[in-house]
Each structure stands twice: as structure tokens, then as C-alpha cells.
């Protein structure tokens, strides 16, 4: 099959970027989207042209390193897929595709399609953990956890930290990402001890990193590759209000 690619090229965070057109032919439907970029990059390398920089690692939808907005949609046209899982069978022969980086103030462009998502790490640093040190743990079966609670905690813990929710949100809010971690830990008995500090620290860090506020539109949950649920945002708001009410001050 044939595709026309319009790809965002930008030298670095400070320079201005632009769309550059590349015509691709002899593609097969079984190729993944990133394999098509591999082929394109090979042809650029032979010509001595700088290759297109894009992020990826596991190529199986679990590491969260791949990004890309394809035709206006974070992680491409299929909902709940990552870009690396997107195959060319999702497009029609002759299509024109616009390929851009994840755009948000908190995600500065490094080059071309690569962005810096350190701001998400900073939110986790603020409190997205249980402060137990290696060696402190009690016997694992000492605290029974209801099957359904463990499964529900897993649903939230499944977030891969890709940032597609942010790239999709019209406010560039990371609410879904933050709420997934808050919910994961608040649901489990081990995580309940620090729930009040955690939610306040993380929500503050989210705002300090320049992410926007959530207006409950729900676009994030439509693209999220791990199907993190909007109800987690409700849980986060509950946890936050609960923490404020319980606040010692």
C-alpha cells in the first residue's frame, strides 16, 4: 500500500518546527506504524539526511515510551492502543497521515517527535509511593486483601505513564495519570496509611509542573491504552477533599 506522511520536524525545544512530507510506497498492512518509520529512516540514513527522532522501546504496548499523535489522535486511530501496537491495516491505501509529537506545555519537544515527560516523574516523586524501606515488610499474607479490591487496584496500577491522556486533553491536564496512582495506592490497605499526604502532594506537584485543570470532558479515558477509568478522577477528588477535611491544621 501507499501512504503520504506529513511529519513534524523540529530541531530542538527552542527552534520552530514544520511539517515535512514523505511519500511511502510498497508498504504492507501487517507492518506496524513504527516499522514504517524504521523503513523511512533507513532511506534517510542512506541519503545522508538526519533521521526522524521518535521514542519507542518495548514495542509491545507496556513500557509507555512510544508517543505520537497520528491524524490528531494520541497513539493513533484505534482507541486503547499504543502507537507501537498500531498497524498499517488501520489505514486505507492512499491515506495522508499527519504525525506530530505529544503536545503540552509540560512536555517540551526534544527533537522532532521526541518530547520530555520528566514532569510526570516529578508528580510520582511528590508522593506516588509507599514509604516502606527494603527489609521492613511483614509476611505477605498477613494482610488479606479482597480479591475485587486487588483487581480494582490493578486496574489503576496498570497505567503505563505514556502521557496520551495529557496530549489528548484540551487543558493538558494529567488528571487521569495522577488519579490512577492515587487510586491504586488508596485502594490497598498498605497504601492507606499515607493517603492524605500523598494526594495533596501529588495534586500540588501536578499543578506546579504546569499541567492544566481537569474539566471532566473524558477524552483522556477514550485514548488511554490501559483503559484507566474516569472514575479514578472522581476517586482522586474524593481523596483530596477527604484529606483537606482531615487536615491537621
Amino acid at each position, binding site marked *: 500500500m501507499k501512504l503520504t506522511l506529513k511529519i513534524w520536524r523540529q530541531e530542538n525545544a527552542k527552534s520552530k518546527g514544520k511539517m515535512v512530507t514523505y511519500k511511502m510506497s510498497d508498504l504492507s498492512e501487517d507492518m506496524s506504524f513504527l516499522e514504517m518509520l524504521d523503513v523511512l529512516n533507513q532511506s534517510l540514513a542512506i541519503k545522508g539526511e538526519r533521521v526522524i527522532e521518535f521514542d519507542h522501546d518495548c514495542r*509491545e504496548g507496556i513500557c509507555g515510551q512510544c508517543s505520537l499523535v497520528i491524524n490528531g489522535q494520541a497513539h493513533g486511530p484505534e482507541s486503547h492502543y499504543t502507537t507501537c501496537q498500531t498497524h498499517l491495516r488501520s489505514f486505507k491505501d492512499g491515506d495522508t497521515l499527519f504525525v506530530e509529537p505529544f503536545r503540552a506545555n509540560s512536555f517540551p519537544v526534544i527533537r522532532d517527535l521526541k518530547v520530555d515527560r520528566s514532569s510526570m516523574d516529578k508528580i510520582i516523586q511528590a508522593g506516588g509511593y509507599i514509604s516502606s524501606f527494603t527489609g521492613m515488610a511483614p509476611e505477605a499474607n498477613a494482610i488479606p486483601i479482597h480479591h475485587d479490591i486487588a483487581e480494582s487496584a490493578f486496574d489503576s496500577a496498570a497505567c503505563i505513564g505514556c502521557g496520551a491522556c495529557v496530549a489528548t486533553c484540551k487543558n493538558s491536564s494529567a488528571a487521569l495519570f495522577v488519579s490512577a496512582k492515587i487510586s491504586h495506592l488508596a485502594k490497598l490497605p498498605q497504601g492507606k496509611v499515607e493517603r492524605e499526604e500523598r494526594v495533596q502532594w501529588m495534586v500540588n506537584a501536578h499543578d506546579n509542573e504546569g499541567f492544566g485543570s481537569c474539566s471532566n470532558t473524558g477524552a483522556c479515558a477514550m485514548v488511554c491504552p490501559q483503559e484507566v477509568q474516569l472514575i479514578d478522577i472522581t476517586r482522586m477528588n474524593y481523596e483530596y477533599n477527604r484529606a483537606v477535611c482531615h487536615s491537621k491544621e
Partner: protein
Amino acid sequence: MALNAKIPVGPLKDKWQNYLAKTHIVNPANRKKLDIIVVGAGLSGGGAAASLAELGYNVKVFFFQDSARRSHSVAAQGGVNAAKNYKNDGDNVYRMFYDTIKGGDFRSREANVYRMAEVSVDLIDHMVAQGVPFAREYSGYLSNRSFGGVLVSRTFYARGQTGQQLLMATYQAMMKQVKAETLKQYKRHEILDIVIVDGKARGIIARDLDTGKIERHAAHAVVFGTGGFGKIFYLSTLAMNSNGSANWRAHKKGAYFANPSWTQIHPTALPQAGEHQSKLTLMSESLRNDGRIWVPKKKDETRAPGDIPEEDRDYYLERRYPAFGNLVPRDVASRAAKERMDAGHGVGSLKNAVYLDFKTAIEKLGVDTIKERYGNLFTMYEKITAINAYKEPMKISPAAHFSMGGLWVDYELQTTIPGLFAVGEANFADHGANRLGANSLLQASVDGNFILPNTISNYLSNEIRTGKISTDTPEFEEAEKSVKEQVEKLLAIKGTMPVDKIHRRLGKIMFKEVAMSRNEKGLKWAIEEIRKLRTEFWENIAVSGDQNGPNSELEKAGRLADYLEIAELMAVDALNRRESCGAHFREDFQTEDGEAKRDDKNFMYSSAWEWDNGENWKLHKEPLEFTEVKPTVRSYK
């Protein structure tokens, strides 16, 4: 240099406790004077970085991804083993130790394996405390399943994303220490050399992958948790950027490389579908708990799987290995698949796959149970292949997966370079000639969290008076210069052969002759081909762009340059070992019914190779002594 494994005295079951009782530890007040560099933020490196930082050392952690949460441990699906005996099915530390030794075909070090089984119990406690949502029974207690090569249920799991959940816990522990300012992270950094001063590892040379800047970093000790190098086969279950470079550079500076040719070829990956494919996605081995593997009895069968009646199906694992059936260890399962495919019974358009069928399990347990156990794997399968595996069998195929070989380490996990330690998949220690499923998340995690923090102190206790290590020395100068020269050399070639193309060709040579089955002629041919390819690489590689910023082609080329050398050592190692053991199957050394023929008289050793300036490698043998177990013929029949 003679190898000294430093195995503590005493009975096997007391060795680790004896070691802990006698080892030197560093006074808490002195720890902040000591700098440690950890390369790798997976379960092994990340666990080490977090635990060492908790102890109060100054830790710097380096990794090439953009966040520590993305290291390839994240991709592990099936589970992690521990001898908790929650199932009352006769499991204990000894049985787990024995299963691992036997699974490794009696080619691993008893003391290390026993220790891994011993501390496995603590790891589950640790991970639960960190918030890992392991699968639970309705009673609220932890649930277990079985993995290949064992008869008990000792595998803990979090749906099909166990690695991700363990890594999240480890990442969060790291982030907690970043906040506490005892841990500093260097993301998007690639380690290109190690610096030795007065015979000790004292630092590294790294390239900042965003700015292209070559940096020097010094420390009192260096820890490598750099993962496996299975990506040498190009098509593998590893991440695209996984590499062997850090280990290889250390090897060239004096670290011995042990059993490099022992690569696990995983039986249940997705088959290659086309020429452009870049990755073989794994379908977790846990699927073999409920899935049945078969091929059509008729060669070149054209009917769809659903139309092939029972009597025309060959459940070849159940047929050949009635005791273990579909749960035989990986090497056995992969070889058996290869045998059927070579005999013309492969399925799929390229005839490079076998069926993994859930029909019986769905009939017995219902779709919902299967969904809860493996839902995300079935979804992943459908995303890649567009096939619904609840309705028709999966097609699976063997793929390069795990490096049993790695840097040689002693009982303290120290390499032959004093001050350089290796943890996780980067070392060679625990899996012998074949790794059991769910044992390597375990090994990586316990190495990092429980073992290394206790052994590195023995080394560091002699460093408290050393003072800050300077990067302003001839050794750093020299190492930086050679890294820069290599970068410039790669950019100057301006050839016509893209990096991926050469890598693919290397992968083909390796998969043909240095993978599931090997023979003398093939290995010699492979060595010739690898050398030719290496020459072609240095004459004709196409690397565009420059070094002053991100340049993914340059990164890939540097890794491939190292792979082209590692490949040769792998073939040399396989050639040297004139026996079959575990994943190392020599066609010229097999029994009449096609099973591996071990030679304990001549090969009861680990091969540790010393770099000899690229001329040749020097072989050192670490004899393996079995005091507790008697090596037997590994039979799963």
C-alpha cells in the same frame, strides 16, 4: 587471573546467613561519603539503586529510557517465583533450589541458587508492602500458578503484567529516594565505557542522548544492572534499545564473560509475519498452564485449525513428555517445536509456527476464567494479529528471549574487575544452561534489593578513607577519548548500508547457527560470516546526522558494533562446549531419541572468557561442585 567464587563455608543452607554474620558493613555515618554508580533502572539496577539510597549511600542511577519506569523488566508477563508453600503442595526452599539447579541442567553454582531460593520468600513480602496488586483468592490471600519445569505452584502474578507491577513498585521506591535527595537519576544516558583506576572500577563514560555530550562520572563502586543482550538476534522479545554495550566495554577492560552462548529461546512468542518485522512479542509461558500445543499430523495441512479433527492433531509435547506435557521447560519446548516445523508440520503462511489452543480449557473453565487469567494477553494478541484467540488457536513460534550468560560474578556479585558488580540478567549467576520461567524477575529483584546491598558493603568498607574520586585523571581522559573517537569514526563512514539491515543479517546468522541447535560446522561458518559482516559494517555503515544532539542511528550503530563482537564470542563459546546441556544443544552430542547428551566428566564447569585484545579469548574454567545434589539426566518424560 584464577577465578575465586568466594563461596562461604558451611552447609549450603547456612552459607548466606554465615556470610551475613561475618561480612563487613559500613558505618551509617560513613555511607554518605561513598558514591555508587548504578547503571540500569530495571528490577535489578532499580532495586539496587533504591535500596542503596535508603541505606544512605550517594547513588547515581543511569538508564537510556526517558523514565526509570520503562526498563525492559516492565515487559515480563507471567510471574515471579517464591518458595512460600502457600499451596501446601510440598514446596520449600530446597525444592525450589533443586528445581532451579535441575532446570539449569546442572550448570549453575549451588550456593548462589540456594541463596536465591532462600530470599525469594522475603521478596514477595517486600513487593506486597510496596503496593504490588498481586492476584488474590476470594479469601483475600495470595494466589499462585505453575510455570514450566516444576510440579508445584509457586508463581505469584499480577494478571499478565507482573513485570510491570514489580517495576512500578521499584520505580516508586526510587522516586521516593530521588525526593529524599540520596538518589540522582540520569535518564536518556547511555554508558559507553567503564573507567579503571589502579585496578579498580572508578567510574563511567556516558553519552547524554539528548545533547550528545560525553560525560565523566566517578564513584567508589559501579554496579551494572544492564539486562540481557538477546536483541543480538535482531528479532527477539527484548526491547528495541536493549543492548550489550556496557557489559561488553567492561569485558574489554577485564571483566570475564561467562557462558555467553547460553541464550534462552522462548517457545511461545508470536511468529515473524513479514520482512519488516522489528520485534517478536512474547506470549507468556503461563498460557501453557491452560493452552495445549499441537500441529497437524499431516504435512502441509491446508485446513483451518477448527476443521482439523482431534485424530489429525499431534499434541507433540503431551506425546513425547507425558509427565510434564505442555509444561516442559522452555528449551525442551522450543526444540520440540523446531523439530516439528523442520519436519514440515509448521503452520501459518510462513510455516514457522505451531498452535496454542484454549478450546479444552474454555470448555472446562469457561471464558470468564480464561479472561481473568490471561485477558490482557489475548487482547495483546488480537491487537497485533487481528485474531480472536478465544475463537481460534494462537499461532506461536520460538524466539530469542533471555541471556543466561553474562558477566562472570563471584558469590558477592562482583566481577573480575574489583569494584564492578553485576546484578540481574547482566550476570551469569543463577540459571545455568536454562532458566526456569518466573525465576528471573526473582533473580533481578533479589540481587538488587537483598543481596547486593549486603555484599557491596564488604567492598566499600575498605573505601571509607579513599575520599572523593576525581574525574580529572589520565584514566578518565583516555576512556573519554576512545569513546569520542568511536563516535566520530561511525559518523565518518557515510556508507550505504543502514544499521538495521546489518543487524538483521547478524540476527539471521545467529538464529540459524547459534540458537536452538548447534553443530561444529555451522558454528565455524557463523564465525566466518560474523567477521565478514563486521568488516562490512566498518566499511559501509550509513549513519547520518551529527553527534551534537539526539541521533538514534548513531546510538543503534554503536550497539551493533558491540553486538558484532559479542556474536563471535557466543559462537566461540558454543564451539568450545562439546556437549549438550540445557539451551545449548549440540547436534553432534545427542542421545538416540534426540535428547541432550551432557558430558559431566569434561564439561562440569562454567566458561569464563577473558578478552585478549581481539585476537583470541582466553578460557578460564570455574569448576562446578555439587555437594547437595547429584547431577542426573534431566528427564521430563
